[in-house]
């Protein structure tokens, strides 16, 4: 497996060819996307096998997902609504993973972001009569600050005390959900239900449907301004990672922490800063979701966006610009997946896709070559 399969000692009885697995020195540019798409195709096939095993009709299910997510402009608009938070958490994971910081806590940072944004409306920090241009920026800042704060704790623990960030970020997800639930039930519950009152219109991000009087096509479309914020965030993170000195430091630390240390980079400070940035992006996702789509604070505002963000980041090869189309695909999967029985199917497909992606990575590093005996002999 590692270098070459041994050729048989006695060539008279050997096969006419040998299968060689050899390390690649460099991979052609087209290989990456081809391997990723191939991995998704294989993952969908495997998913179909599992669906068949539990007695479902996989092809009908897939056709349904495609139609219910991308079939017409109305459902595509709903897909974009789902893609918006995914884009932001995908970015959150991308920037952290780029430094090999395993922030698995985007889910909790998302919840904290939603909580921070809600506080602006529900305490209230911005009075109910305040116009949108005051309320919305305040919500944005509060959401990002809460997410960043939630990311600061594991970042600081990792930087100062070398505490494994995978487990701390994950544990903080559970804490954040319980924390938000406390506020939903005990502080802001509307008539004992598990939700707060609906926010005033000034706290809603503008939607396409708001412009339906001018443009008829937009009637009933729920896509909101969070999508633009997400795309802008992707551009900013791309610029930071690939065009700024700080991004160069992040990438250097991620690729070779020892070299980075010898070069005098401040790993401690960067660890904290990157975790906070990552948390702020996930918090932004939480803010955008409740200001753009839910319009109140309630329990289970996320069907696991934070975890899907991990897969999106990986599928996008941590490239912020590629995160945009990938999150739209996964937005469709989550939107249409809600109606599919059994309910674990979208989760299962996501798991298989991630597995196939990392397994297929071996094809980027190794080449499988079938060598006919004549030239195999020449090699040996």
């Amino acid at each position, binding site marked *: 497996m590692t270098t070459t399969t041994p050729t048989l000692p006695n060539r008279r009885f050997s096969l006419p060819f040998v299968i060689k697995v050899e390390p690649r020195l460099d991979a052609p540019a087209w290989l990456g996307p081809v391997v990723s798409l191939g991995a998704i195709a294989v993952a969908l096939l495997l998913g179909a096998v599992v669906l068949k095993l539990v007695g479902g009709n996989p092809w009908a299910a897939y056709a349904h997902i495609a139609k219910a997510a991308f079939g017409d402009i109305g459902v595509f608009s709903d897909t974009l609504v789902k893609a918006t938070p995914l884009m932001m958490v995908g970015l959150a994971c991308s920037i952290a993973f780029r430094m090999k910081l395993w922030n698995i806590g985007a889910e909790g940072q998302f919840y904290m972001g939603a909580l921070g944004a809600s506080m602006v409306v529900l305490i209230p920090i911005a009075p109910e009569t305040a116009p949108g241009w005051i309320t919305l920026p305040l919500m944005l800042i509060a959401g990002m600050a809460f997410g960043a704060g939630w990311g600061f704790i594991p970042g600081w623990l990792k930087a100062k005390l070398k505490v494994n960030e*995978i487990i701390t970020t994950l*544990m903080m997800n559970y804490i954040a959900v319980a924390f938000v639930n406390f506020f939903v039930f005990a502080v802001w519950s509307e008539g004992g239900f598990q939700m707060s009152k609906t926010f005033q219109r000034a706290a809603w991000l503008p939607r396409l449907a708001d412009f339906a009087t001018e443009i008829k096509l937009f009637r009933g479309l729920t896509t909101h301004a969070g999508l633009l914020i997400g795309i802008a965030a992707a551009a900013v993170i791309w610029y930071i990672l690939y065009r700024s000195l700080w991004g160069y430091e992040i990438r250097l630390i991620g690729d070779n922490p020892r070299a980075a240390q010898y070069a005098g980079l401040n790993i401690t400070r960067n660890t904290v800063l990157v975790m906070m940035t990552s948390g702020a992006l996930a918090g932004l996702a939480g803010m955008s979701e409740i200001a753009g789509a839910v319009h109140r604070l309630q329990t289970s505002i996320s069907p696991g966006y934070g975890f899907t963000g991990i897969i999106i980041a990986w599928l996008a090869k941590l490239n912020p610009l590629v995160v945009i189309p990938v999150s739209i695909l996964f937005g469709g999967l989550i939107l249409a997946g809600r109606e599919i029985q059994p309910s674990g199917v979208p989760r299962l497909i*996501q798991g298989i896709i991630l*597995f196939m*992606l990392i*397994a297929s990575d071996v094809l980027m590093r190794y080449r499988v070559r079938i060598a006919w005996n004549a030239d195999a002999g020449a090699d040996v």
Partner: protein
Amino acid sequence: MDPIIILQAGVASGTVLLFATIGAIFSERAGVLNLGVEGMMLIGAMSAFSVTVATGNGGLGLLAAMFVAGLLSLLHGLVSIHFQADQVVSGLALTFLGVGLSLVFGEGLSKAGTITLLPVYTVPVLSAIPFIGPILFTKQSVMVYIGYALVPLAWFFINYTRPGMHLRAVGENPTAADAMGINVYRLRYTYVFVGGTLAGLAGGTISLAISPGWFSELTTSGQGWIAVGLVIFAQWDPWRAAFGSYTFGALRRTILDIQGPTTLFGFANPFYYNPYWGFFLQMLPYAFTIIVLIIGSREALRKRLGAPAALGVPYVRGERGH
């Protein structure tokens, strides 16, 4: 709020964490970090419950749990040992996959039927010991006793047997182990599988004995992740793993029980009169995991102890070691 009952139930509930933690210790001692414990536990719980409902035989259920979770762990083994993929991402993928598979195959399982719980025993002489007897040896599930046996066995195996020495060698210095003629790949697969079967056993212990039934994701509710954290606290030692697991079990039990009574130590019970404080109680196991990790990391820094040297590093034959 009887402390004896809390500790007794805590030992029972800690047994789940114990199996998962010791399984992860085996895998990590061999140098393979497997973050998929939560997924393997969940699929173990699902398999154990469904096989037991179908056959009426809890032992078969446990075997199924171990086998299925072990198979799932081999996927992680293949990807991280042979394909040299990043073990963190592969472990996460394993969790997604395990949870997804469990939810899909476990659909409707919660109403599928009832099971007979695994047998409960009271040990004749030992249960008479004051304090310890009622906690450890009275009306405990058979799984709890298996847990008691597993701790010294695992400790002895890892530290004092030849295969145990090979296990540590593979995790500390695979290049040297290879030079000694140890098959690094085979041993790593073996112990990843052992870790998987123990995680499956942990899952089966939940659904057949500790909190019986199938409640989809809530069956494990993050205990797999707590186990991953406990490994670091335990510093890869089974005895410390046992201490951590039982302490956590007792904590979980306390949280469940503290909201019940109207008075607590003679005072009005604030948790009874403010039911919403329960959300803060729910946070405690997760907050404690973080605290326990901090303790473990500080201690590791001070004593210059640490993870197995080759933990998380794929071994490539013929390449220079790290």
